[in-house]
């Protein structure tokens, strides 16, 4: 951080001003002139919060994707199918037992199991052959999509939000002041906040596991030099299986989250595959903090775009990707 400020004082200043401006926009009561030019503060605050919570969903999907890529150099294009499959498992379990939490747990382990099978049966056989792996995962994603269409049909599924999470809560952020001097606070869906907190907890746990544990050390060493790690006697195949299981399981959890505040249907798999591709390209392939940053940027761009420039909202996301590819092709937070 300090090194960045020393090296790029001008950029650091711009970033600081931008953050201060954003904080002011969020915390202050907007003067009437500002409300007239860019609309009500409630809309802006909602868009920002939605962007961040949507980003947390993208992060859950993309972190598994980027973890698998970082360690195995394997672009798993069936990742979207794992997301959708996790969502369907979550739906089935929560509809059957009535427990939302249990849906998460079983979706995680169920999809992790699929990940393990994929790694052992498919990827181990074509280690190091990028193109072949890519083609096989595309093929698998098509097969999975059709199997799920066969099993679940084209209907929309929504995972029932538990009753204690339905509805909005008031946040201590003033959106407007009534003429009587009474402050109006922001009302925001509770379930989205819970999902945001969960994503942050998972993100921090992953960071800690990667940076503070022995297994994490092995994974990081594997990212840097796989062959050397194998030569030191670490059971690298076991590490691969564990990482693939974790990455797939995270996609499964994301599926339950997505099924709760959006919906599950055929086609969601490719949508989330595309989203996680964009996120990791922006953030930097193989980097967990990069996935977090990329997810928040893409989430905010989508939501702010859909409010302020609805016609071009879709373009904004890809514009960001193009800019990143042009100026910093390795991604914002990639090492090297």
């Amino acid at each position, binding site marked *: 951080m300090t090194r960045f400020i020393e090296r790029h004082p001008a950029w650091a200043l711009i970033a600081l001003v931008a953050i201060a401006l954003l904080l002011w926009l969020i915390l202050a009561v907007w003067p009437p002139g500002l409300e007239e030019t860019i609309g009500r503060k409630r809309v802006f605050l909602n868009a920002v919060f939605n962007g961040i919570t949507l980003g947390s969903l993208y992060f859950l999907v993309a972190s598994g994707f980027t973890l698998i890529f970082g360690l195995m150099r394997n672009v798993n294009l069936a990742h979207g199918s794992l997301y959708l499959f996790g969502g369907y498992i979550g739906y089935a379990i929560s509809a059957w037992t009535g427990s939302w939490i249990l849906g998460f747990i079983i979706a995680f382990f169920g999809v992790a199991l699929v990940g393990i099978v994929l790694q052992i049966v498919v990827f181990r056989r074509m280690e190091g052959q990028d193109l072949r792996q890519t083609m096989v995962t595309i093929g698998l994603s098509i097969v999975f999509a059709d199997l799920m269409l066969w099993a679940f*049909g084209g209907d929309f599924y929504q995972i029932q939000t538990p009753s204690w999470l339905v509805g*909005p809560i008031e946040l201590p952020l003033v959106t407007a002041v009534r003429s009587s001097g009474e402050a109006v606070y922001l009302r*925001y869906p509770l379930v989205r906040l819970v999902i945001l907190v969960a994503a942050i907890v998972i993100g921090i746990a992953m960071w800690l596991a990667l940076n503070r544990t022995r297994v994490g050390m092995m994974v990081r060493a594997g990212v840097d030099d796989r062959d050397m790690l194998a030569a030191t006697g670490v059971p690298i195949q076991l590490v691969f299986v564990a990482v693939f299981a974790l990455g797939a399981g995270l996609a499964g959890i994301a599926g339950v989250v997505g099924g709760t505040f959006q*919906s599950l249907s055929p086609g969601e798999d490719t949508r989330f595959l595309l989203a996680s591709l964009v996120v990791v390209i922006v953030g930097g392939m193989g980097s967990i903090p990069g996935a977090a940053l990329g997810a928040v940027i893409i989430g905010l761009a989508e939501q702010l775009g859909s409010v302020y420039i609805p016609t071009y909202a879709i373009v904004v996301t890809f514009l960001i990707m193009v800019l990143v590819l042009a100026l910093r092709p390795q991604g914002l937070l990639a090492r090297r």
Partner: protein
Amino acid sequence: MFRSCAGLIALSSLLLSGAALAQEKIKVGVTATLEGTYTVLGEDGIRGHQTAINTLGKKVGDKEIEFIIASTDATPDSAVRAVRKLIEQDKVQILLSPLSGDEGIAVKNFAKTRPELTFVNAASGAQETTYVDPAPNFFRYNMDGAQWQVGLGKYAYDTKGYRKIATVGEDYSFIYTQVFGLVLEFCGAGGQVTNRQWVPLGTKDFASVIAALPDDVDAIYLGLGGADAVNFLNQYQQAGGKAHLMGGSIMVDQTILSAKGNAKNALLGTIAASGQADTWEDAGWQKFVKAYQDAFPPNKRFPSPSLLATNYYNSTMALILALRQVNGDLSNNQAKLKEALAKIELDAPNGKIKLDSNRQAIGTNFVTEVVDDGKGALFSKVVKVIPNVNQTLGYDPAVFSKIGLPSRTVPECKKY
């Protein structure tokens, strides 16, 4: 001995099947949105198509109709690709296509490049398809989006007392047409449309759109369909939305009313208008509902056919009846079939249908309200039936043409 006997049987069966092949077939290509946001709509469309085949059979004189189904995803290029594939690879002579608004405009334009073939619209409802520069070989037996909104504006203004409304709709031709019909009538009655929001087809996260909805309106009109509608309702409920709702023709429809989960309950009491109403007591409608229910097991269909099923049923029926009238004669660039199609009057389950000079349907429209059947299933209940709705919505054609074509901002909110 045995072997030669078996060989003979095999040979004769081969010859027999050859004879069966020699019987002439009429090949019809069908497209439906079996992928993407509108998957559920496409699936139910195909159910309606199948119901029509079950009712009428595939025989035309001594010929048999063969239907070949291709999938699209509601984008115009996917529809043209599917139609091309059906014509060039499967050698179909007649098209029953497409399902969605933008697809309809594209297929109509494509139809002009193949004037020798016949195109029967399956369910698409953009106004432009048959109103602007219509193709002489393109026939539409369903009303367009604006016709399907007739009655809603007046009902909202007079009976419900709504004065100011805002709209949220998917950003493409069919919803433009729906909002066009609504705004003309609602503003004509004296109401105000203060805000029109457009979201891309396939939007998943509506939270910001919901936050941007104005507070100072009496009702919010939703022109969404398929997955978009379900996502909107889900997030609307989570945000604690309480406004009165009004619905477009594919918003208040069995495709949404029977979605899994409880978000659809936000629609209870919503008023809407469409080319059909689930609980209409007409004998023809009830018979169709029964045929639909009998054709599929309960978990493979909706409790009652959706608008798409009805449209596919009607267009399939029109085609089979017209083919029978001309005894399957497709000679001379299918001239006889085209003539028969243009003249045919359908006794459709959702009211009588005939075509105007642009080969666009004139039919019956329904204003409805969403009710609970007491067991948790939602249905649209008829509140008003309006017969003989034409494409200019009862306006003088000269006046109507001055309004302009449906778009994000057309028509203006005023009395024309």
